[in-house]
């Protein structure tokens, strides 16, 4: 701050408090709705303050689910989301770190071509090539499987580019010293490169976990068996199924539970998350 202007400081605080309220509004409304019983919504507008049924609603959704909507209990869907998010995060980091190592530390024929094949994936979000990708996954018999949920989303180049940038900033002297000491490429990779990129890996993990957890279209398309439903895609199925008699309190309880893990990760790992985000994008 350059000069002391109490009025501007006050205005800044007011803007921020208003901003925080607006940002939090939908979640507050959802939380309130998730604490009421089914009858609270019959009489006009939604209540503004929490009701008595918090434990009842959440434990019901976690344990049994809504039998009429054809979705499994929220516990099962959360577990599927967790598996999918972890597979995507870990898988993407592993293949990216290996390929970035190959591209930066080796010279081999068609290196440029291999690099470009990876590069173009930046331009093809899954939504755009959804029909043929679905076809490939169906032909490979990967519908309704964790592999089908995660592998097609693993191969995008952003992570490869991040690791490439990181490796390019590691001084050549380190590599030379390692080679003089007789270290082969894989030993160098394991003992020097990986430890040096530890924080980048952790930051990227946070972002990819959220990316995986929040996937919607892909799981919605390729899972037809309730055993593999993920929570984000499951909410939509629930909201559709309860269209006749709106069970808002249960839908909102599910929405709250779908939000908790990724939001907890962002708040808990804020510093790593911000670092990872700014670095991945630039």
């Amino acid at each position, binding site marked *: 701050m*350059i000069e002391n202007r109490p009025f501007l400081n006050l205005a*800044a605080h007011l*803007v*921020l408090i208003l*901003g*925080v309220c607006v*940002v939090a509004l*939908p979640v507050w*409304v959802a939380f309130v*709705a998730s604490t009421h019983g089914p009858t609270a*919504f019959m009489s*006009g*507008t*939604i209540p*503004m303050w929490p009701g008595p049924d918090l434990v009842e609603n959440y434990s019901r959704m976690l344990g049994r689910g809504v039998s009429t909507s054809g979705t499994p209990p929220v516990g099962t869907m959360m577990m599927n989301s967790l598996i999918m998010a972890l597979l995507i995060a870990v898988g993407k980091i*592993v293949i*990216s770190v*290996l*390929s970035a190592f*190959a591209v*930066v530390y*080796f*010279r081999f024929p068609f*290196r440029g071509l*291999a690099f470009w*094949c990876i590069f*173009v994936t930046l331009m*093809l*979000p899954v939504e*755009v*090539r*959804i*029909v*043929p*990708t679905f076809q*490939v996954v169906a032909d*490979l018999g990967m519908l309704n499987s964790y592999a089908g949920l995660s592998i097609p989303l693993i*191969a995008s180049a952003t992570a490869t580019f991040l690791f490439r940038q990181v490796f390019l900033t590691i001084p*050549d002297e380190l590599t030379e010293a390692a080679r003089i000491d007789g270290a*082969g*490429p894989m030993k*160098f990779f394991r003992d020097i490169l990986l430890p040096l990129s530890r924080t980048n890996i952790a930051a990227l993990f946070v972002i990819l976990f*959220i990316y995986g957890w*929040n996937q*919607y*279209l892909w799981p919605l398309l390729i899972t037809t068996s309730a055993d593999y439903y993920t929570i*984000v895609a499951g*909410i*939509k199925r629930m*909201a559709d199924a309860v269209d006749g008699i*709106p069970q*808002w309190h249960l*839908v909102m309880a599910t*929405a709250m539970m779908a*939000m908790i893990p990724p*939001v907890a990760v962002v*708040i808990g790992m804020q510093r790593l998350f911000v670092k990872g*985000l700014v670095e991945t*994008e*630039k």
Partner: protein
Amino acid sequence: MKRTIFRNQLLPWLLLAPQLIITFIFFLWPAAQALRQSFLRQDAFGIRTTFVGLDNFRRLWNSPEYLNSLQVTAVFAISVTVLSMGVALLLAIAVDRMIRSTRVYTTLLVWPYAVAPAVAGILWWFIFNPTIGIMPYLLGQLGYNWNHISNKGDAMTLVVIASAWKQISYNFLFFLAGLQAIPASLREAAAIDGAGPVRRFFDITFPLLSPTTFFLLVVNIVYAMFDTFAVIDATTQGGPAQATNIMVYKVYFDGFVGQNLGSSAAQSVILMGLVAMLTVIQFRYVEKKVAY
């Protein structure tokens, strides 16, 4: 470029193999299929496929529905970008003024990044529910009869708000990082010269923030065009009367629900062209920025 390299010939291919195999099977092959499919047409029973050249594209060009979708996408993308970037910039400037409470406000503002677009859609859909929602009630008090199920403008407003809400935290983080990278000495010098806060913002802060703004512009357009699929599907499903049928939703709808594979593939190809263009712009910019 690295001076020191390892000389193995086989090892790099082994290292690249997992990424390349997945890329070929799940990216390049489907993309090639989309391209091939866009020149073909299947009859109603899916038995015969004929090569029709550019006919699928020509039909799109003459289809009022597709032209409508282009227009809807443009309105949607511009509204989401302007709304989310405007609010985010305002909040970032306010936080940048803070000395002590920066961390607290940042934490309170970043978490919507982690909320799935589909969930964001459901939350706002609930708030704006015409019978029990809180917003229609408040708007009703003001004499406005909200109904996004039948009113086109209301439906567009709903999906814009839900999509922009989710994106504010992202833009906020980048604007804040951009603001904090501006040396304080510049603004101090201007303050000594007698420039007030508003003048300083327009003459110093905003020009220095322009690379961040441009980057965010591209990212937000891409977000509004593709990542908002879930918002649309969870709320309006492209309706009412095509009012929120953005291009990426139409690709899905025509391909999976309408089973019109040729048209859907042609739309995919057009979208691929658009993303490719935006990606190239983004990379050009990043390279230029790295250079200086």
